[in-house]
């Protein structure tokens, strides 16, 4: 009798195992086939499976506020695009040129392009989209210098600027330069059913809003050959462990890789590579007028903060190989970044103490900074110890990530630690580090304004030097205390080749089948 009971229990266990094993043929679907949930290779008919952490919010021109721009910029073509080296390349605009004082950009629209609703991609359509982006809540900031957009004939658009803007072309290669069909530009349907001329169309039948987004290749796109996958499926996965599991089980073909996780992926199944530098990590010293902490108004104190920061040690011990030490907020691939500046304000505790004493703060001072679980907490004890050496006492105030931006913007903290993504251009990086929450106290100086104005107005071949001067000013005046830049890593399935682009997650061009 007891044996029978055990046998029954065993039978239940076997039945469960069989039930699970019965799923085999459909479950993992990892070894081939171009069905949803699996990967495959083979050029024209292959499917690429990707994960996105944030579902797209709104596909309307000027309203995109989702996470990665992959989806948006697959459906819409942009006025120009960025090469893997970060150079501006033709796209909808086949050629373009500035006038002598960089206040007028003339775009010559490529012939023969159409949107997927068969409306022509002409100058009027481009002007309509740029005007929508200029008003768009998500893009108006990037086109702030634009005072007018006009289609002067069927294939020419003139963009007039209120002042020279060295970041304009890069902006026109981003979501701010996306062009959609004028037939539905204002239509609410575009929110989830976009009509563009991009390399892919959003397949409504294969899309479940908030969960799965399926793209089908648009063979009529002028550059369709650069996009070898016929279908691209985005699965929304917000949990990092779930992304890892999806990668390991073959459900997705590519993922960013956190430092220290390389060993999870067997070499015979996955390819691991170095991505592009993605963001600078550091301290933004906001209260440079000394409103909350008077000491921060003194450049010697800000320099002392930089000198007390042992970047090499922090990057080595806490960065797990994913952080490269730097004392500059500018993109290391950009021309404004200066190797000569790298040794400026490098770790020198004695000099830091001297500067604090010279500034009248030999006893140090207290400062409150926001603490966010999982973001700042890793680095807090290192900052406590290193800044403690020069008498700076940090109080970490725990806040949620949801409240973080608002509390910074409300000037609750004189300085904060964060990561700021690279914009893709030197002008963009200057803008990104001196606006919004990164300049919550609205601090500037006449010298800085002059340097930026000069850089923006400089002829294209002189802009590198001009923006390098801005960067030198940042370092000299110690507006920030950068720690290092995050050097992204990625992992792909063996049958996928990924060539790291200049800006991550902008287009699907970096992906190709291995064969």
């Amino acid at each position, binding site marked *: 009798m007891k044996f029978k009971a055990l046998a029954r229990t065993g039978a239940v266990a076997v039945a469960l195992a069989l039930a699970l094993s019965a799923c085999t043929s459909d*479950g993992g679907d990892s070894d081939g086939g171009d069905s949803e949930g699996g990967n495959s290779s083979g050029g024209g008919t292959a499917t690429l499976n990707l994960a996105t952490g944030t579902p797209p919010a709104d596909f309307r021109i000027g309203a995109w506020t989702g996470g990665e721009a992959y989806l948006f910029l697959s459906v819409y073509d942009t006025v120009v695009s960025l090469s893997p080296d970060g150079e501006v390349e033709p796209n909808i605009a086949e050629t373009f040129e500035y006038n002598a004082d960089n206040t007028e950009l003339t775009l010559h629209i490529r012939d023969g392009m159409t949107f997927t609703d068969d409306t022509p991609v002409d100058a009027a359509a481009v002007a309509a989209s740029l005007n929508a982006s200029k008003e768009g809540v998500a893009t108006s900031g990037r086109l702030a210098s634009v005072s007018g957009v006009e289609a002067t004939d069927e294939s020419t658009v003139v963009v007039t600027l209120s002042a020279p803007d060295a970041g304009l072309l890069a902006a026109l290669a981003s979501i701010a330069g996306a062009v959609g069909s004028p037939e539905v530009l204002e239509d609410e349907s575009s929110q989830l059913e976009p009509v563009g001329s991009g390399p892919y169309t959003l397949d409504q039948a294969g899309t479940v809003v908030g969960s*799965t987004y399926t793209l089908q290749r648009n063979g009529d796109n002028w550059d369709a050959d650069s996009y070898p996958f016929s279908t691209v499926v985005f699965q929304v996965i*917000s949990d990092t462990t779930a992304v890892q599991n999806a990668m390991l*089980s073959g459900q997705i073909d590519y993922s960013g890789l956190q430092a220290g996780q390389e060993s999870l992926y067997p070499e015979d199944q996955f390819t691991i590579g170095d991505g592009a530098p993605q963001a600078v990590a550091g301290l933004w010293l906001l209260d440079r007028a000394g409103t909350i902490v008077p000491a921060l108004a003194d450049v010697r104190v800000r320099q002392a903060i930089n000198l007390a920061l042992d970047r090499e040690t922090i990057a080595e011990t806490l960065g797990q190989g994913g952080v490269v030490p730097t004392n500059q907020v500018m993109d290391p691939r950009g021309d404004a970044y200066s190797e000569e500046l790298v040794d400026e304000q490098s770790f020198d505790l004695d000099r830091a103490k001297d500067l604090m004493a010279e500034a009248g703060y030999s006893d140090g001072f207290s400062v409150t900074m926001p603490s966010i679980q999982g973001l700042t907490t890793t680095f807090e004890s290192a900052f406590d110890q290193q800044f403690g050496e020069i008498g700076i006492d940090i109080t970490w105030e725990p806040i949620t990530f949801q409240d973080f931006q608002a509390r910074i*913007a409300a000037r609750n903290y004189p300085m904060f630690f964060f990561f700021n993504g690279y914009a893709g251009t030197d002008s963009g990086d200057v803008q990104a580090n001196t606006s919004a*929450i990164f300049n919550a106290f609205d601090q500037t100086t006449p010298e800085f304004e002059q340097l930026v104005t000069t850089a923006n107005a400089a002829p294209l071949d002189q802009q590198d030097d001009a923006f390098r001067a801005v960067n030198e000013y940042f370092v000299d005046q110690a507006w920030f205390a950068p720690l290092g830049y995050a050097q992204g890593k990625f992992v792909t399935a063996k049958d996928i080749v990924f060539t790291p682009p200049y800006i991550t997650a902008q287009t699907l061009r970096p992906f190709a089948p291995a064969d």
Partner: protein
Amino acid sequence: MLPYLFRRLGAGIVLVFLVTGITFALTYTADIPVARNILGPQATDEQIAILNARLGLDKPLWEQYTDWLGGLFHGDLGKSYFSGQDVTDALTSRLPVTLSVVVVAMIITLLASTALGIASAARRGWLDNLLQGISTISFVFPGIILGIALVYVFAIELRWVPATGYTKLADDPRAWFSSVILPAIVLSIGGIAALAAQVRGSLIDELDREYVRTLRARGVSERSLLLKHALRNAAGPALTTFSLQFISIFGAALFVEKIFALPGYGSYAFNATLQGDLPALLGVTVFGVLLVVIVNLLVDLAQGWLNPKARLA
């Protein structure tokens, strides 16, 4: 019967207003900077003000709530701040995902706990001790650990089931089953222990009653005694526990859906709460309250069917 049903549904509707009102007030006082979170760290104050106005977040609390209630009366739960999707559409497409997992989990819970409870109550001795030990361990064992272990073995190593995602039942029944079985097992573990203990306790009580001894004296077989008479009488309390398990499992689906990246009601509720997506959160609340009211009603009706005395009460 009908007046009873109307009374219960009426109470449910009152509950919807109460709970949504409280949810609205709590979310409002939490003061989550929605527009800033949507636009990101590079957003200027001007852009944030424009988006706040567009979303209606610059209106007073009472006006926002009455606007939402006005929509509710017309069956319109509004649009998500973050996805732009109609909340009713989102919930009706996501609820089947969660219900798939929850129903499979409930079936597993019901079958496993009934079998364990009966075996423990009928056999007693070492088997009872063993099953109670297993129940205790499964009760305290964190479901999330089990989830990770199951994913590692069955999805990553064996690749029998997908690690993430969901397939609709109508599209492919086998793929549907493989997409819900692991989350369902994770969800059912704690419930099996609780319900098995309830079934065991109630059955032991019933088996000690006089009518059982009488039936046994009349020569009724042990199997019939156990399954036909004692189990039916013991089912009442177990059913109450079962209904509580449904609510508990429904709530736990919130975390499990995140681990398995299931596009269900739970992950929608999770994101809406974190983001302060008020229309989505209120829609989740309305659907959740109605679901709980309906399940409790069904359980009460089942109680009445099992035990005629309960109908009078």
